[in-house]
């Protein structure tokens, strides 16, 4: 080959790289593990230093959830045909297009909306983009967001909105956690492009005034953006039905292992209206006929954005995101079906309610802190125990239990509080074990 190319060595192929910039000598990297066995042993040896949530009993949530991952989900997303495909045409990669179209379609059913994107990076990006879409659509530059979102999400939104969008937070009722409607009415104006809240909230409770919030937004010409966990939509009304214009969130609960946070993927959904569709920075796959009647073809949807009046609010970008997780979520929803989504929703609400009731019985513990319906997570307060959450969690750790996320630093107004998450992987015994352990620790 070298001969054909007309050189003696590969060195000559770098003729455009100046001598000055050439690395002298070798890079100082670890010795390679040349045999597959050695490599595997090395990496597994390091991984062995981890203790996973499968080995411990975990009540952690806060954006990454321990739900059961059906075996068929793993089977499908491990197939090399899906795993190693990328960006072929709708001919040679027809399967990928169809799988993602079906994912979007199933999400559309859950959300009662007709347009769902090919996944973006994660729920944070989905919400940040949704807010910018709202700004582009309305031509306004101020967004109002419920204060009860996580500090991490707020950090992402602030950075992403930096160019010229103002982010304002709307307070909540300390008893219920619910968005303070009076505070919202006071803050909203004709400069507001979007009113945004999560349902369920980061703090686990359900926002029960969604229809009023969206009404207030619409009365002022603002767009209502709701962050919703899709696993809740078997039992909860989809936000579109109470006035949400853009719905977004993370699909990790739908068939992705937690992977230390590596299973995240974001969705954005809207009505099928041209001006909304034109604002998506993500890919949108549409269905199309072929030259043979009855064949399903697919392709990218891209409407001309001719009206530029509000487009100067800045474009976004599209890149490699999380398509494989989208396909997986499609498989998950097909396996679960309507009945499965109803059952899991009820199950999550029941189990977390049970945990709240049992934990509340513990001396010094208050659960839930917010007097509202909850979905899968709740805030528990430990002020009465005289112990910090850190101390309690350390003690739980010795009992091989991961306690809820410590909220003390993030939300000091909640005192010594933690965010507990209960899913369908927790049996009654598991919850009882937690409660027993907590009892011991606080005594």
């Amino acid at each position, binding site marked *: 080959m070298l001969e054909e190319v007309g050189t003696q060595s590969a060195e000559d192929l770098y003729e455009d790289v100046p001598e000055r910039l050439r690395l002298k000598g070798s890079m100082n990297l670890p010795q390679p593990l040349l045999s597959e066995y050695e490599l595997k042993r090395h990496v597994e040896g390091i991984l062995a230093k981890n203790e996973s949530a499968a080995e411990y009993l975990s009540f952690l949530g806060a954006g990454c959830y321990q739900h059961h991952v059906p075996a068929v989900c793993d089977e499908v997303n491990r197939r090399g045909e899906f795993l190693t495909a990328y960006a072929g045409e709708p001919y040679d990669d027809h399967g990928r297009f169809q799988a993602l179209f079906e994912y979007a379609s199933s999400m559309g059913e859950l959300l009662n909306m007709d347009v769902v994107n090919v996944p973006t990076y994660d729920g944070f990006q989905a919400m940040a983009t949704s807010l910018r879409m709202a700004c582009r659509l309305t031509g306004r530059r101020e967004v109002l967001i419920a204060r009860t979102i996580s500090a991490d999400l707020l950090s992402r939104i602030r950075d992403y909105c930096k160019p010229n969008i103002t982010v304002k937070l709307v307070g909540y009722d300390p008893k219920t956690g619910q968005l303070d409607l009076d505070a919202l009415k006071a803050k909203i104006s004709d400069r507001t492009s979007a009113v945004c809240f999560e349902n369920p909230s980061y703090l686990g409770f359900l926002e029960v005034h969604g229809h009023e919030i969206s009404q207030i937004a619409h009365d002022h010409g603002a767009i209502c953006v709701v962050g919703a966990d899709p696993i809740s939509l078997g039992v909860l009304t989809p936000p579109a039905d109470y006035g949400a214009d853009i719905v977004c969130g993370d699909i990790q609960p739908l068939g992705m292992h937690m992977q230390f946070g590596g299973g995240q993927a974001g969705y954005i959904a809207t009505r099928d209206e041209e001006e909304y569709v034109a604002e998506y920075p993500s890919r949108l796959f549409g269905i199309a006929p072929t030259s043979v009647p009855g064949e399903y073809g697919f392709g*990218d949807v891209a409407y001309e954005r001719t009206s530029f009046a509000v487009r*100067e609010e800045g474009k976004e970008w599209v*890149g490699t995101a999380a398509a494989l997780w989208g396909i997986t979520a499609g498989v998950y929803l097909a396996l679960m079906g309507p009945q499965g989504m109803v059952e899991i929703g009820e199950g999550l609400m029941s189990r977390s309610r049970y945990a709240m009731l049992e934990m509340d019985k513990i001396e010094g513990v208050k659960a839930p802190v917010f007097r509202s319906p909850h979905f899968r997570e709740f805030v528990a307060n430990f002020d009465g125990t005289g112990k910090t959450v850190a101390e309690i969690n350390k003690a739980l750790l010795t009992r091989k239990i991961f306690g809820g996320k410590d909220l003390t630093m993030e939300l000091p107004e909640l005192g010594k509080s933690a965010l507990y998450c209960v899913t369908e992987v927790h049996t009654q015994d598991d919850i009882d074990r937690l409660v027993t352990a907590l009892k011991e620790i606080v005594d």
Partner: protein
Amino acid sequence: MVMDKKLGLIVNPIAGIGGRVGLKGSDGAEVQRKALKLGAVRQSLNRAIRALERIEPVDDLEIVTYPGEMGEDAARACGFAPTVIGSIIPGGTTREDTISAAREMLELGVDLLLFAGGDGTARDIYNATGERMVVLGIPAGVKIHSAVHAINPVSAGNLAGSYLQGRTSALREAEVMDVDEEAFRQGFVSAKLYGCLRVPFQRRWLQGRKAPSSPGEQAAMVAIAADVVSRMADDWLYVIGPGTTTRAITARLGLDKTLVGVDVIRAERREGKEAWLGELAAADVNESQLLALLGGRKAKIVVTPIGGQGYIFGRGNQQISPDVLATVGKDNVIVVSTSAKIHSLGGRPLLVDTGDRAVDSMLSGYTNVVSGYNERIVYKVSYC
């Protein structure tokens, strides 16, 4: 495919007749006689046939055309039974025939006018119908500077068929150029913008892959206009050169612009969403009017490359003379262009030819081209 469409067909039998025998262009009876004497063969018929055979002769597609060599022959050769209108003197057709044909087809409401011809034919059609019809050119001429034509007869036929079948509906504004034939025969090109025709364009299937498709030409022009307008100041005059991109700027200000002339405008800032309102200070000015208006005033000149060769000065905007440019200064020249237009230059620089070497030199080097909202391309400007 449901059609029920009318396709207008005009073949200019003398288009391109001069080329093969070394004569540039074919306007003028004298040139035509010379060409025929030199053994020139009429190519436009063949070209028209090559295009038409791409279109299926189905029942609900009606071809409307002129007799004999102006279209009927080509249509029949491809198996169509055309509706023949008008009358001609065979072997002696003129520009007037083209113009009449186009006008009649406009009256009949054809969905698409397909013509075989060059710049001259395009100009005649523009004269006849303005921008009221959708038109597509089958290239059959020596010098095609207009953007109304497909790249070859086969493409023209494909695109026409696609448009008639409703498989493509996008339209773009294509420049019709006016080339001085005599000058051309003497060996130099002098083209200027003559008008604009609406032409179908095939949006290629979007290989969406890793990035969304670029905005269409329309969206790009609106973005450029938004950028330029947002930076306008109340106390400046703006000299707006010919072109569709510059026209988008005045359109954004609510003004009508002469497509091929140079207009001078002012902009006023208002409160609210559409924050600027335009005012026409003078339309279609010549050099002395321009100098009079600009005397002592702060002014900017906004130009866009015209035609395929990338001239920003010296082709069709000679009113913006060396004196005007010297008065305004290089720093106050704003060049606008869509990135597609820049790409069509194929790496060649933008060109200036004001007639004054010193001014040409001043304008050369690199210029910041406004190519979108908050988007610039730094591109080379040259003179030769």
